[in-house]
């Protein structure tokens, strides 16, 4: 299964979907962070500026800075993105507890903005399966 949110051709579509989501708008309020979502060896940087996603960059992002990263193997993300994920792949926190995902960088920031991150990933799942 190809992970759609790291496809550069989908970047604008996914960005617009995030910014249009009512729950995401509340969850991401005031957020100005660069969030790295790493799928296997592919880095995807989601740039938030004052609560708005301004860019999703997965092409040539290897040197882009980030504040915190959520990392997982490709097959872990494939499981996470299923309409009904299997256990231990259904949520990032649980996935971290079970060693399927890693949270790195400024973890305080990550937990401060956890709602925005988890809602974002839920939207990625919805769009993956549309």
């Amino acid at each position, binding site marked *: 299964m190809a992970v759609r949110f790291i496809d550069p051709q989908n970047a604008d579509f996914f960005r617009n979907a995030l910014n249009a989501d009512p729950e995401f708008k509340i*969850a991401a309020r005031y957020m100005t962070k660069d969030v790295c979502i790493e799928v296997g060896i592919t880095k995807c940087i989601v740039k938030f500026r004052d609560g708005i996603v301004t860019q999703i960059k997965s092409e040539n992002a290897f040197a882009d800075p980030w504040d915190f990263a959520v990392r997982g193997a490709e097959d872990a993300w494939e499981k996470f993105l299923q309409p*009904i*994920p299997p*256990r*231990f792949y*259904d*949520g*990032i*926190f*649980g*996935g971290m*507890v*079970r060693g399927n995902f890693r949270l790195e960088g400024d*973890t*305080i*920031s990550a*937990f*401060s*903005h*956890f*709602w925005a*991150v*988890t*809602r974002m990933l839920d939207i990625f799942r919805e769009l993956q399966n549309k």
Partner: protein
Amino acid sequence: MARIEPIEGRYIYLTVQGIEYRVYYEESGKGIPIICQHGGGGDGLEWNRILMDCDITLKYRFIAVDLPYHGKSLPPESVQWWKEEYKLTKSFLMDLYLELIRELGLERPVFMGNAMGGFLALDLALEHPDQFRAVIAVNSALRAGKPTLDTFNHPDVTNDYRRSNAMYFCGPTSPEKYRREVTWCAMQSPSVTKGDLYYYFNEHDLTGKADKMDTSRCAVYLLTGEYNPTKSVEDTQMLIKQIKGSKFNEMKGMSHAGMAENPPLFKTYLMPILDEIAKQHN
């Protein structure tokens, strides 16, 4: 005509380890008393949908307690709590419940708890088996790991974190309306989670002791959610091998939030246990 549910809330004065507390509890139903303990950082609202279910409360009396410093149980007047770091201990929890049983005149109630409450259920069964006819430990295990807790107490980490985490402590097929209620309850939490987790991570450890539980004096039932990442089904299965006579059921599709994330489904696991307890004690 007004629609009023038969849940009643009261305050009871309990003196525990020399300090007087006004402890809030809600009760509903008649019959065998069942004390309900909430999870870490939560309050008795987690049991709300169970207490409002007239089928369940027809034969059983549910008593859902807000621990001191949680929900409607304010901090004690005699303590300058704002100058101290809150820390929940096993001895406090046990003394509180023994005092509650005494003050309410409960005769060998059932003790049921989820997560942190599930840990306490087993600790009570081990150390005070003659005070309870049975315990129901939801999402419990031998012990927990010991992660860093400071992150969860950081001033930059607000209840936004708790609401999002709570969502994913529910199974993906649990109905959205109940999952959102779980997040709502989690958002209300005062900053007690780190203190509650002191007991959870540091003081509950049944290693080398679980096999000493006497289920002929206090029956032990365990329920664990299929999706629970913190205490997996396998963790519980390891535990039941050590508790002779204990009974276990995996709650399919459910996770850490237990009774709150899918009350109708939780009921299907709970009722056979309660009916078995009732039959054994008739």
